[in-house]
Every structure is written in C-alpha cells, then in structure tokens.
C-alpha cells in the first residue's frame, strides 16, 4: 500500500452566491445573466475537497495535489488569484464553457480525459476528490462518471471525514439519510471521494503559497486548449432560482427574552 497519495481534485467555478443571480434563457439554453462578468468562487463543495486534499497531502509526505477545472481560461485565471493562496496544488485547466447547464456525461468525459493525461500520475495512488454536488447546477453525478471512466470502483459520496491508516487503508465517514453517517473502510487507493463540507475551515489567504502556485498555474493556463462539449443531448424545460427565505420585521420594545422565545418558536416550527 502506498505511503503517499496522488490526489486529483475536480472543481468547477460557480457564480459568487452573494451576488444577485438572475436566470436567463437563450438560443444556447439556460444561463445566468452576465455570468461571465459575475465574480466567481470555487464551487464550495469542491473547495472543501481541495482543502481536505491539501491537508491530507501535508500529512502524507510525497503526496501531490492536482486541481482539474473546466472553466473559461480568463475566468479561471482570475479565480486562481484567490484560490491559489489557500492551498498548494498544480492546476490542470480545461478551457471550456462557464455555467453548469452542460451535460454531466460530456463534462465528465472531458475531466476524465484530462486526468488520464496528467504526466506522472500514478493511478495506484489516485484519490479522486470533488464535491458530491455542485452548489449551482450540478446533476450530482459528474464525479461518479469521471470515476467510472477512469475505472475506479470504490466510490464514496457525501464524505465528511477520512482517516488514513498506516497501511494505506482508510476509514470514510459518509452522510446517509436521516442526518446520520455511515462508516466504511476502504482497502486503499484508487478511490473516488465526493466531499460534503468536511471538517476543515477555509484556509486564510497566504500570498506566499499563492505566488508559488502561480509559477506553475500561469504557464499551464497559457498552454490550455479549448474543449467543446456536446450540447444537444440535453433539454431544460424550465430554470428558476430558489426563492429567498427572508422576512424583515421591524419591532420595537421587545425584551431580549421575548426575542429569544420567538426565535425558539420559529425554529421549532420550521
């Protein structure tokens, strides 16, 4: 069993959820208005996977982390200025369309091809990380398909924790129905782990890490070639945003106890 891992993190970008997002329709299918100029963040589920990967790699000397992302090149570079400050990795960019309305099979095919072509990647050490869902428009199946295309049979979804044993096997905490976790033990790499939130906080921006990462990220971005994804295999009937659950009520002269009681009642009713 390997002492070190080759961890590949699949992570797309999504529009910053704090911004005002408006769905639009067009000849090329649904989209988000002005998405190319909206600030973007790394998909939060996948970001958890990246931080977990960086943490695991730091604990297992000789391990290496790659970040594979399918996004427009220019947008990806802008995003990397922030993400690259948080963890050490090598970027494998795929210059593709923005937005999550592409067919999961086509996306997975592009990701799997890019991963298979990573020089020096040892598949016996491979842990394929990613978000178990996309925070924006994922079908929830992309990572599984990537794993299948790479021939990886051991797959875990909704992962919150991984404990690696000395022999290279690891214990996985997976979210299951009813707010519970399922504990599994895997004999070792290769495996697919679709992360939920994990247990690590977001690392703070470290310019030193960022500058070091950019030395490899910039050349990789310059060399990346655009891919075209199959678009006519999927048809969306309608697209909408979840409605905002926010109620503003202005009250005066309520005591702290009354406010607390009301909050408890409201939480209980939800």
């Amino acid at each position, binding site marked *: 069993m390997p002492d070190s891992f080759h961890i590949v993190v699949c992570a797309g970008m999504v529009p*910053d959820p*704090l*911004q*005002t997002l408006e769905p639009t329709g067009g000849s090329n299918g649904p989209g988000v*208005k*002005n998405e*190319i*100029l*909206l*600030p973007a963040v790394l998909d939060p589920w996948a970001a958890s996977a990246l931080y977990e990967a960086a943490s695991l790699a730091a604990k297992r000397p000789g391990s290496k982390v790659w970040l594979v992302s399918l996004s427009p*090149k*220019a*947008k990806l*570079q*802008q995003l990397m*200025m*922030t993400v690259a*400050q948080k963890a050490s990795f090598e970027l494998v960019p795929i210059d593709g369309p923005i937005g999550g309305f592409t067919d999961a099979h086509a996306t997975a095919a592009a990701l799997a091809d890019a991963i298979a072509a990573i020089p020096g990647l040892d598949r016996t050490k491979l842990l394929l990380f990613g978000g178990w869902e996309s925070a924006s428009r994922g079908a929830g199946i992309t990572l599984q398909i990537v794993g299948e295309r790479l021939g990886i049979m051991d797959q875990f979804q909704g992962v919150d924790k991984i404990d690696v044993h000395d022999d290279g096997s690891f214990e996985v905490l997976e979210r299951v129905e009813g707010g519970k976790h399922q504990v599994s033990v895997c004999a070792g790499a290769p495996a697919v782990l679709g992360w939920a939130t994990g247990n690590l906080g977001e690392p*703070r*921006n*470290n*310019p*030193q890490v*960022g*500058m*070091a990462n*950019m*030395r490899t990220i*910039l050349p990789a*971005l*310059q060399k990346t070639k655009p891919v075209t994804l199959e678009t006519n295999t999927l048809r969306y009937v309608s697209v909408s945003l979840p409605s905002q659950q*926010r*109620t*503003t*009520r*202005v009250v005066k002269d309520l005591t702290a106890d009354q406010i607390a009681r009301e909050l408890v009642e409201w939480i209980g009713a939800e």
Partner: protein
Amino acid sequence: MSFTEQPVEAERQTMEVDIACVGFGPAMGGFLTTLTQAWSMFPGDPGFESKMVPGMPLQVHCYERADDLSAGVSGVVTSAKGIRASFPSLDPTQIPMATDLTKERVFYLLDPIGATRRSRTLRAADFSLRLCGKLFAKDEAFELPWTPAFLHKRGGLVFSIGQFNQWIASQLMASGLVQIWPGSPVSSPIFVDESAADKRAVVGVRLADQGVDSHGMPTESFMPGMDVRARLTVVGDGPVGQIGRALNQNENELNGRDWALGMKMVIELPEDSTLEPGTVWHTFGFPEPEIFGFMYVHPDRLVSVGIFVPSWLGDPARTAYRYLQHYIQHPLLWKYLKDGTLRSWGAKSLEESGRRGEPLLTGDGFARIGEGSGSTNMLTGSGVDEAWTTGVQLGEAVLELLRGGLSFTEENLTNSYEKRRRASWVERGARESEHARDGFHAGFVHGLVGMALAGLTGGRLSLKSGIRPESKQIRSSSTQTEEGATLKEIAMRASAEGRTFHDALLTARGWPEIPFDGRLLVTQQDALLIGGKVQAMPGFADHVRFLDTELCRSCFEKSCIAMCSGQAITQGADDAPAFEREKCVHCGACLWNCAHPPHAKSSNIEFLAGGGGLHSAEN
C-alpha cells in the same frame, strides 16, 4: 520573481518583482491596460524582460484590499474621453450596467418635510417657487431650464464601477501578463531609509500581517505580511489608502482638504418604469442644501441613486444613510422608485480638493495615479475618466522608461509621467476647477456662485475662501453651547433607548421616522447585508483605531459615529467609540470626521490596512 527561503514559518518573507501596484480601481485599470496592450503587441521587446528575476518576463503584481476585483463603489456618469481613447471600439453593451448617456437634467429640490437646515434666503426662494405653482415647481422640484456646458458629459457613458472593474480585470487576466491579487491589503511602503525625514525613495511595499487578533497581536496562526521589493511601486489606492497617505511628506501638509462621503443604492425599478436607460439627473437642495444627489439609469431597469455629504456641511449630525433614505423618498424620485427593490448599496470617501490637494506625484521608485493623486475635476464632478487617464499616462511613461533601459528615479518619472500629465486635458481641467468649490466654505449660495464663475470663465474667476482643516469644518462650537448640550442629550437618550446614535440625531432634528418596507426602505444593517454584502476576512487586525480615547470621551460632536457608513463605529458603553470590523465598508469617512485631533495630527483615528468590506459587484 524569486523567493528568499525562510527556515521559520513566522519569519517575514521577501519577494522581488519589477512593478508592484497598490489598489485596483480605474486608475490602475488604465495603467495595466496601457502596459499590457503594448506588451501584447510586442512580446519580444527586451524592455519587457525582468531585471529583478533574470530570464523571466517583467514581473507585474497588483495588490487589492477588497476580496474581489469588482468590489469598487460608484455609479458613474463620465465623458469617457480617456476610456474611449484606450478602447476606440468600445461597445457599452459588453459591460453589464453600462450604456450611452442620453439625457442630463438638473433639479433644485424643495424641502417637502420642513426639516432641512435652510437659510432664510433659500426659504424665501423656495416660497417664491411654490407661489408660482406648477409653472416652476413640480413634484417639489424645480428643473433648471438651462445648464452650463461644464456640467454636461455629452457623448459619455453611464456605468457601474464594480462591473467596469470586473470587465477590465477579466481582460487583464486574459492577457496572462500581470497578476492581480484580491484580498491582499498592503500595510506600508518600504523606504530606502526608514529613518530619513524626507521619505521620497521607495523600494516596495509590505503586505498586511495575518493571523493576528483585533489588536494586531500574533496568534498561533500568525503569518507576517510579505515584503514585496520592486523597482517601481505604483500607488493607486485611492484617497484614504494606506500607502498613499504614508507617502505624504508631512501629516499636516495636506490638512485642509475637502471631502465628501458618496453613498448610493442600486435599485431595481418596477416593471412598468418609464425611465429610459442613459438618463442622468443631478440634484441639489435636499435633503440638505449642501447635499448634492444623483440618479443614473442603467439598462435592465436598474438605477444608481445617491448623495454626496460634504466635509463642509458644517454640522456634526451627518448620518448619510438616513439622509439617503429621505432623499429617495423625495416626491420627484419616489414616484419612480417607490415600488423598487434594493439590489446593492455602498459608500466611499471622495477627495474633493482636486488639484489643490495634489500630493507629491513621484519619488525615487514610486508614482501616484488616480483620485489619491488629486486628479478629480471638482467643477465637472468627474473623477473616473481622469483617474483612468492618469493611469494611462503613467503606463506610457513606464513603457518609455522600460524601452529606454532607464531606471524609475524621481527625475525620470517626473520627466516622463508628470510631464505627460501636466500637458494633458486632465491638468487643464484640474487647474480650471482648482478653486471652483472654495466658496462653499462661506455658504451654500456663495459656493454656487463661485462654481458658476469658475465654470463660465474657465477657472479664471472664482470665489476663494479660506479652507479650514477637516476637524474645523465639522463645527467649532464648544461643549458649553446649546448645540453641544443637545448633541450630548441625544447621545445619552439614544444609548438609553438602545437605538443607534446615527438615527437618533436626525430624528431629534425633526426628520420623520423611516417607514420600513423590508424591500427598499430597510435598516442600515439590512443595507449592509443584502445591499453591500459586507464581508470581513478573519485573521486581520482592526484597521480603525482611536489614538486617544480620552479625547473621544470628551468629544460631543461624535461625527465619526454619525458619519460611519456601515454603523461600524458606535458609541461604546464607556462613552468612547467602539469599532466592529465586520461592518466596515472601508469608506474612510471616519478619518476626516474627527473634531478633536491630537496635537500635530489631523485625526484622532488611525485608518490602517485591512481586508474585506463591500462585496457587491453591482456598485
């Protein structure tokens, strides 16, 4: 770039680049665009080879405090002369919220409430206008039948600075030639000789420490900010930026400047709105005579509506947010806005001295561009295009020096950058407007006459007036006066009632309470959250500090509290102001709203480098 290996994690690291840029706004956009356009055209030019890291291309790094490059604030109407020169085939439809300027109107707003601090002269004028009825005044407003050319921006653009910055940043990033780092506040310049009194030689900048507590003390995750050593440091961090202020030769040298707090909302209009994109309204007279306002109509039923609260308001009760809420409810605007929804909100300090407040533009190893360099034209009320153009001018100068193999000495920068600037339309406009607004220090009507004189004579005539230090512009009454006693009483009552001092001030002045609707008329805290989307990254120290809290306790004006855009400064339990970093939008208004600075200081408030702030991309 090269790294100095550090054996101990907590040791400060050093990096070397060719050009370190501080702040990413329109000026820096102009600088980096000029540089990358030429670089892309001639990639093999030896001038674009790094001297700091031999064998590598020119290393250009830009550090921006905000956590996204689109977090700038301003609805903009601009002649766009400089911007269009950089992009001759500019198509506004490619920039969200941008459109061609179609119509400009100027209104004098009457006071429909009766709470403003109007002089007798103005009250008499208002009475006359009302007496003439609908012939002159409609919707409590009087439209100027004619406006002088200097107030127009024909052929210009209306846009959002957040979206414009994002558009520029995406092109710069696509070039792959420069690195722009958001979330990277810069704490100080690195001088050649820290002990020298004359600090005119800079060799780079130091990034802010992280992993510190609110007082700046290291925690277990302490990470000292990196020293970035550079051949040239480009300072474009705005009027309250840490680096620009640190480069001022003497704290009092620039004391006595004019400022304004610009605060605005982006509002989504109701579906049946009849306002045409590209429409621009300028207003004055309400919510106070001295507070100018604006409404710019963007495409897709969005408008930017805002006010400018000047330092020379002459009144410590200056709660901009409350004033803004009354402003949008003025009958002239409310009939269009009343069923609208708040989309975004933001505020920033505007340096309104223009050329009169111009600091040293160049030194050995540094050059200043943009608003902080005194480029704003205070006659036309135009700053973005001027800032952009100063960036372009420095970009052209740097290209000239790089290609000539010349170093970035003060002499070379003066002969290239400053020379270009002095010969340009930016300088001509700055000179014409240099004293255009001085008259406002002697009264509102005096100020209007002064502006008209300066505008109509190309700056040859104006009504000059002594400009007092910012602390004296607030009000010069003492605690013994009736005013002082009233303010103290309001502060005590607000504290006892558990309401904010900001709000209590205007209520005590007779302004009606705001009828919150939870959609457009929302509390200031809601405006921070759903409008400005304010963020504060963990691990940074408090960037607002009070130097002498005893002075604060004895201060009755408390204008730093009243003017704080995000209610981040509040009245603490011990009568001294308290600061909450999580609410700060980094407008910097507290800096020029201190009525009692310590001896030989311009303010009792220290405004340091900090991360976070506004997060909305639509400002």
